[in-house]
């Protein structure tokens, strides 16, 4: 069996499961945020089913439209807050202590190997980087799992993504996942578990791995997963005393397909509008004038990402015509970035630095685009209208490429800026 099949079997009291089987699995951890949770709570209330299976297994953070952008989003956040109080949900991260959910939960030690995790957000697949089965669900699924602690799953086929070679200068895990999605397309792993393996994965930090699994959903996958190794265990043990179980795929496990990428020949990648699969190597990009840069999000707003961006921006200025917005993904990342002097680098270069929020990634607030504007962003989607006007454009890159582009005022090769 694969790691995914083993975790799902263990959580549904089965010895074995295979792709296509329906299982009803126990859920160990549920992630809730301000957009998709209030409707789930209303559904339960309307049906007289207003209870939670275990308040200790629910983690809540408002992150999409906070600090509240308007009256309606404030109402959503209030409904979320009141619900956590009513049910004694301790793990609630109020604004100021909050973070973008998919950065916050691993950082706070909630995610551990072998768990089944769900969240009412498509990028919940991120947590698979720690060896958990983790997937995004909608509000009705969320209501069901909050009520019962269980959820039905179709056991997914697994796709093996083998990453080998040496990462060249200026090429990061974001470039690697953009290349994988370029090859297989935005539905290349539809309904599957993408299992990342190969020597490169071992060399990547846990933070960089979280970027890989974060974007599994952009290839249509149900989940992304990475078998735990020493780095995983060190990361988890620094953050949690709770026990966990390590699963790994059997050598003879069945995979629906295998994708092999030799990363040695990769260049920094740029995904063109309007699909994450429209990646091009930076040498084929040409001159593209941009109006805004966003560095942040659940994909690339962790400390390592900010360090890389600061390395490019140190002592430089962003182009006069351009807005650069830097958003540390969690309050903890924000504080550490301040202590390390990263925020000073950003502000000194002429960037706006924000409190954690998903804001601009989904065209919510804090960096919405006008008609015809172009943005280079370290986020995960560049669909039509994703960051604002339907006639605006989003180009997805790594933090290094985004920072270099902010200085150049056009899409730029970060290798010219790195020592």
């Amino acid at each position: 069996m694969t790691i995914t099949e083993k975790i799902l079997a263990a959580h549904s009291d089965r010895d074995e499961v295979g792709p296509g089987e329906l299982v009803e699995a126990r859920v160990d951890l549920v992630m809730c945020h301000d957009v998709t949770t209030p409707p789930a709570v209303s559904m339960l209330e309307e049906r007289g089913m207003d209870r939670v299976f275990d308040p200790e297994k629910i983690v809540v953070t408002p992150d999409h439209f906070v600090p509240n952008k308007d009256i309606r989003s404030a109402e959503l956040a209030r409904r979320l807050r009141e619900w956590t109080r009513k049910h004694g949900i301790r793990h609630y991260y109020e604004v100021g202590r909050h973070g973008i959910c998919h950065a916050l939960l691993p950082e706070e030690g909630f995610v551990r190997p072998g768990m089944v995790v769900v969240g009412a957000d498509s990028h919940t697949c991120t947590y698979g980087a720690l060896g958990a089965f983790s997937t995004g669900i909608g509000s009705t699924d969320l209501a069901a799992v909050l009520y019962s602690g269980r959820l039905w799953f179709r056991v997914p086929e697994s796709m093996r993504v083998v990453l080998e070679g040496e990462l060249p200068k200026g090429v990061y895990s974001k470039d690697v996942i953009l290349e994988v999605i370029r090859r297989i397309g935005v539905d290349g792993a539809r309904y599957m578990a993408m299992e990342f393996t190969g020597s490169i994965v071992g060399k990547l930090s846990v933070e960089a791995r979280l970027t890989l699994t974060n974007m599994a959903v952009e290839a249509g996958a149900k989940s992304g997963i990475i078998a735990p190794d020493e780095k995983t265990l060190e990361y988890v043990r620094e953050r949690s005393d709770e026990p966990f179980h390590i699963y790994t795929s059997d050598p003879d496990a069945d995979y629906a397909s295998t994708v092999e990428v030799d990363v040695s020949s990769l260049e920094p990648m740029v995904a063109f509008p309007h699909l994450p699969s429209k990646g091009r190597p930076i040498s084929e990009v040409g001159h593209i004038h941009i109006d805004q840069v966003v560095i942040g999000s659940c994909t690339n707003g962790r400390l390592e990402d900010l360090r890389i961006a600061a390395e490019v921006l140190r002592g430089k200025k962003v182009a006069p015509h351009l807005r650069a917005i830097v958003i540390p993904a969690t309050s903890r990342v924000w504080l550490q970035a301040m202590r390390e002097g990263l925020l000073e680098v950003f502000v000194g270069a002429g960037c706006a630095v924000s409190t954690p929020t998903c804001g601009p990634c989904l065209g919510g607030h804090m960096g919405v685009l006008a008609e015809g504007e172009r943005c280079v962003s370290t986020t995960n989607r560049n669909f039509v209208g994703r960051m604002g006007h339907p006639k605006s454009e989003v180009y997805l890159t790594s933090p290094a490429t985004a920072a270099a582009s902010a200085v150049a005022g056009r899409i730029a090769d970060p290798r010219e800026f790195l020592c």
Partner: protein
Amino acid sequence: MRGYAHVYPRDHINTDEIIPARYLNTDDREELARHALEDLDPGFVGKVKWGDFIVAGENFGCGSSREHAVWAIQGVGVGAVLAESFARIFFRNAINTGFPAIECKGISRKVEDGDELEVDLEAGVVRNLSKGEEYKFSPFPDFALEIMKAGGLLEYLRGREG
């Protein structure tokens, strides 16, 4: 179910096009319905009639987990989405809400905008009344049918607990 087809043969019609995030500051379904498909076809809400169908290409509903996408098109009166294939969270959300998301191979090439269709969920058949054609689709798995018959996942859950 009987209604007229609104055909968007493109692949990867995503949740940002189905209900842009600028409207996610509410979960009021009537409000969401007013913006259904707004960034794909701003004229859609003005022309769709109760019981009509959306016909689309591969991977319909990819992107966000927002169930608001299902609520918006359901709320504006769409009876079902007939697509070559669906993104998984959208498909789950549709089943859980009791909304038919029907995977029907070749449909985006066979049906023309404005064709009158009849969908028979039990038989797994789409009848094109305008063209006199029939298209078969794979019936839903029993489990999904039970949820849809119950009226959604929560009703199913409650019914099971008896």
